[in-house]
């Protein structure tokens, strides 16, 4: 009986402590997450100017959607004075070497890639992990590509007869990303107008 009381008291005190810390840090944490997202989003835009609130422009594209990945994808619509200038896709390439690769892909209104970043992945350190921008420049090569540059038939890594450089020793990782970017470009080409006209409340940014 007494043990139970002691345990309950300690549990109450500990819970209070955690709750207080949570309350003190909540705003900072939310701000940090928001800052990280916006920082990553703006970085793949290669300096395109925009003035809308990116996080408020999020549109959830539900499966099945034709984009890479088996989960819902997120599209951020980038507007400048209400005119669409680019779209940012958060998608998942499912065929990485050691699991899914979460990618952020920026495409400008004319269908050219503004930049690609790996957001989350578990690729082999030193080989496939070179897709991280702070480990190698490989991921930068996508900026400026589009469905016409290189030619559609050349949208593959060199090993597969295409024109895109692969990471040495990481053909599977490279192929997964090249395919994901290509598929996203095709999706953008087919659905561009729908993306920018879709109402924001048709998506749920909380997901």
């Amino acid at each position: 009986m007494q043990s139970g009381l002691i345990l309950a008291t300690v549990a109450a005190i500990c819970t209070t402590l955690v709750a207080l810390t949570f309350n003190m840090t909540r705003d900072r944490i939310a701000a940090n997450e928001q800052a990280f997202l916006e920082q990553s989003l703006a970085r793949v835009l290669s300096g395109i100017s925009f003035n809308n609130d990116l996080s408020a422009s999020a549109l959830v594209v539900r499966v099945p959607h034709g984009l890479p990945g088996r989960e819902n994808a997120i599209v951020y619509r980038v507007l400048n004075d209400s005119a669409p200038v680019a779209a940012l896709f958060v998608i998942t390439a499912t065929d990485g070497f050691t699991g899914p690769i979460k990618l952020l892909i920026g495409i400008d209104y004319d269908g050219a890639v503004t930049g690609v970043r790996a957001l989350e992945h578990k690729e082999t350190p030193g080989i496939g992990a070179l897709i991280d921008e702070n480990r190698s420049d490989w991921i930068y090569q996508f900026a400026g590509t589009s469905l016409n540059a290189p030619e559609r038939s050349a949208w593959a890594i060199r090993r597969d007869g295409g024109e895109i450089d692969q990471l040495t020793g990481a053909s599977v990782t490279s192929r997964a990303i090249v395919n994901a970017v290509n598929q996203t470009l095709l999706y953008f080409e087919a659905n561009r107008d729908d993306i920018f006209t879709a109402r924001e409340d048709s998506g749920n940014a909380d997901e």
Partner: protein
Amino acid sequence: MSDQNSIAGRLVDGFWHHNPGLVQLLGLCPLLAVTSTFVNGLGLGLATLVVLTMSNVLVSATRRWIRSEIRIPMYVLIIASLVTCIELIFKAGFPALDRSLGIFIPLIVTNCAIVARAEVFASRNSVASSLLDGLAMGGGFALLLCALGFVRELVGHGSVFARLDLLIGGDVLNGLQLLDGGFLLALLPPGAFFALGLAVAGKNAIDQRRREAAGFRLSI
């Protein structure tokens, strides 16, 4: 065990003779997993040091009320609450480092070095004494994490102290790039085992040499 009562003796104990990672081989999961770079090792080492010290103090302060039949749930409650607070503070203060350490911050809860010190030491000794024990043991663990991170980063990446900005803030610091590229194995999980094995062997070799110099014979 060296002189139990002097402060210096206790510190030497935690950092060397009874180092939780090097001698007791406790908490190997985070130790092996996060030490791919120096800054990761330092970050997790500091977090573990804080949790271990605070849990020692709290367990010691409440040791009169902790009955033996409920002591394990009490330890778990105290340690889990502390770790949750630390995790929230990391997310608020060092978001980039938190992303890089990932799951290993919440996993400090399961670091058996912390429960071991609560059970073996803090539940039987005074608050001041437990505080010192936490600092010594936590410091020893943190130092080992840093040392392994330093070596693996140097061998694997060829760099030293890269990305310290994750911890201290400010611009991206790339540290010193001593070699172009590195020996990949050091960064992969086997590299962690090799590094730890060499560290343990090195420590034993130094101890043995000292004992021989002092004229003792190994009994085994």
